[in-house]
């Protein structure tokens, strides 16, 4: 029971620390760590969820008020958590390695980008951009379009399995990217590499600033996605997906309709990405194909693998860790190094000012993803928060 005051204390201390040093990356990491501690601590459920809610609903926006960059980081984390949860259904539960997952994110993003900007005037006749409130409709449109794309892509490829499926989905992802880059002619759908801007933003309730608004919206979507994910997992649908992952032949023989369940996995996974794509395009105001590369697909995969395939808390933690690594640790290291350089610091007789200018630690996302994938596969393929089997009450 020592953990009760400990949990409250950790959150309070980290919040206080953030209030005192609003610009310190380390302190922000401490704050995130305290959330993880509370999540894992042995404390009454009600206290756990109150603490987490207080931290995410009150403390985080307060932090964001002092340092909007952190709010941006938190929103990015939210976006990637939803993507990781979506990919987790496809890879973790159903066992289908999808290397082109970001394509669904792109489909969602472009669906709002085209109609939420004057760009649609080029394709259709006049009347665009749509009014801001259409954004909410498009959250559903993005979901539907992405899910449909998932089914359309899934139909021809799902009889492949294992590594062939992986390569084909990679091919699809590349095709979508090349299309996004080149469909500025003969009809200009995507405006090619130049991208689409300005994309409308919805009117915000209570005059919230956009930073806070998108943070709360992302949080809301993440909560919805977690609930949907849990309910799917604990149903005959989730069990059918896992059965397919474990043994396709036996699953079919036990009455699992293979194609339908695989398509459903693709569609569900895609739909999360579609919704977040719509949010992403409104948040960014500008999108171009650069945001939807193979690198992003692998990044999301690394999040799922790091957390643990098939594990919801794993996907959340994995997405957080990887996003924070990329956005804060790498960049923070870059900035810190630059400061040291400018201060003329020497390490073991080597002047840091002599470091080559092309050496930019912030650019090594791929190395982060690569190291995560390889180390996890070799040393801990089940991830840091492995999926736990649900234990059922017996005798009922």
């Amino acid at each position: 029971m020592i953990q009760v005051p400990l949990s409250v204390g950790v959150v309070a201390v980290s919040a206080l620390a953030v209030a005192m040093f609003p610009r310190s990356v380390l302190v922000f990491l401490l704050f995130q760590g305290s959330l993880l501690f509370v999540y894992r601590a042995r404390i009454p459920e009600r206290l756990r969820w109150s603490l987490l809610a207080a931290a995410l609903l009150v403390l985080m926006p307060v932090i964001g008020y002092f340092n909007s960059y952190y709010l941006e980081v938190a929103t990015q984390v939210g976006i990637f958590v939803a993507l990781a949860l979506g990919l987790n259904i496809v890879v973790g539960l159903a066992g289908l390695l999808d290397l082109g997952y970001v394509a669904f994110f792109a489909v969602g993003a472009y669906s709002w980008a085209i109609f939420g900007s004057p760009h649609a005037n080029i394709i259709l006749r006049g009347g665009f951009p749509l009014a801001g409130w259409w954004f909410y409709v498009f959250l559903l449109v993005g979901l539907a379009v992405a899910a449909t794309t998932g089914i359309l892509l899934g139909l021809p490829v799902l009889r492949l399995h294992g590594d062939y499926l992986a390569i084909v989905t990679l091919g699809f992802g590349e095709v979508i990217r090349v299309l996004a880059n080149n469909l500025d002619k003969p009809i200009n759908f995507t405006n090619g590499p130049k991208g689409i801007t300005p994309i409308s933003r919805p009117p915000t309730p209570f005059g919230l600033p956009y930073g806070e608004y998108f943070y709360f919206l992302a949080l809301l979507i993440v909560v919805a996605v977690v609930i949907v994910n849990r309910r799917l997992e604990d149903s005959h649908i989730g069990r059918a997906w896992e059965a397919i992952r474990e043994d396709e032949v036996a699953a079919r023989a036990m009455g699992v309709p293979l194609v339908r369940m695989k398509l459903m996995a693709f569609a569900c996974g895609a739909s999360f990405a579609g919704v977040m794509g719509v949010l992403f395009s409104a948040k960014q105001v500008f999108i171009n194909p650069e945001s939807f590369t193979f690198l992003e697909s692998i990044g999301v995969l690394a999040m799922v693998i790091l957390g643990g395939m098939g594990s919801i808390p794993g996907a959340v933690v994995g997405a957080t860790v990887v996003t924070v690594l990329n956005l804060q640790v790498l960049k923070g290291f870059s900035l810190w190094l630059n400061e040291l350089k400018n201060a003329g610091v020497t390490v073991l007789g080597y002047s840091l000012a002599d470091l080559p200018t092309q050496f930019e630690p912030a650019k090594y996302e791929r190395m982060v993803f690569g190291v995560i994938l390889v180390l996890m596969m070799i040393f801990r393929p089940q991830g840091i928060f492995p999926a736990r089997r649900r234990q059922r009450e017996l005798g009922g």
Partner: protein
Amino acid sequence: MALFEARRVTKRFGGLTALHRVDFALEQGIASIIGPNGAGKTTLFNIFTGLYAADDGSVTFRGQPLLGLRPDQITALGICRTFQNIRLFSNMTAIENVLVGMNSRIALGLWDVLSHSRRFRRTESHLAARAIALLDRVGLQANANAVARSLPYGDRRRLELARALAPEPALLLLDEPTAGMTQGEAGTLMRLLRGLVADLGLAIILIEHNMRVVMEVSDRVTVLDHGEKIAEGSPREVQENVRVIEAYLGTRGAGPRGARRA
């Protein structure tokens, strides 16, 4: 009309004819299919359950043609099976394995699942109770929450049987259910099967190498050799059939009783 009837089933793999015009019928009770390794027994099961497409012939269940149906459709019609080399969902618990087997009996939509509707909750608790009952029937109730991979061999066999019963089949296909069991364990299993036939009116087709089991439990026995049916009849008739003796032991020797593992 027989419950289950196969006519002139033929299957070729490349140049090899695995099954040649095999007829098979079952009204009720337990029928065994025996024959040396490679005789085509498992291939026949794979055709019956839709895993392989037959090159020729017909298979009907309650008058409905099965060839061309998908495995899950055939399961939904009321035929389920086990596998020779146990194919459980290794990383799922025993009860989850059984629950997967009930998939074809669940009429819930996506919306029921997402909204946790009353129908959903009722169905889930009903399914769980049924799954426990099935595990109880095969003597695995205490292990319901154990991960399948961690169960000992004999328990895995019995779990596979419980899973095969989950879709409420009218016809059960068991591929060497006693393989690797002691004579005592095999006897217990056979009493269980007899009980299923008596209680639930199940019909069972058995592929078996343990001749004592076959002779004790079967109502009828079919003998395959090199993809062809060479004999059929009551256990006694088959035991005395000259072609069967030849197939098992070459040209001389006693009955198949001596050939526990052909």
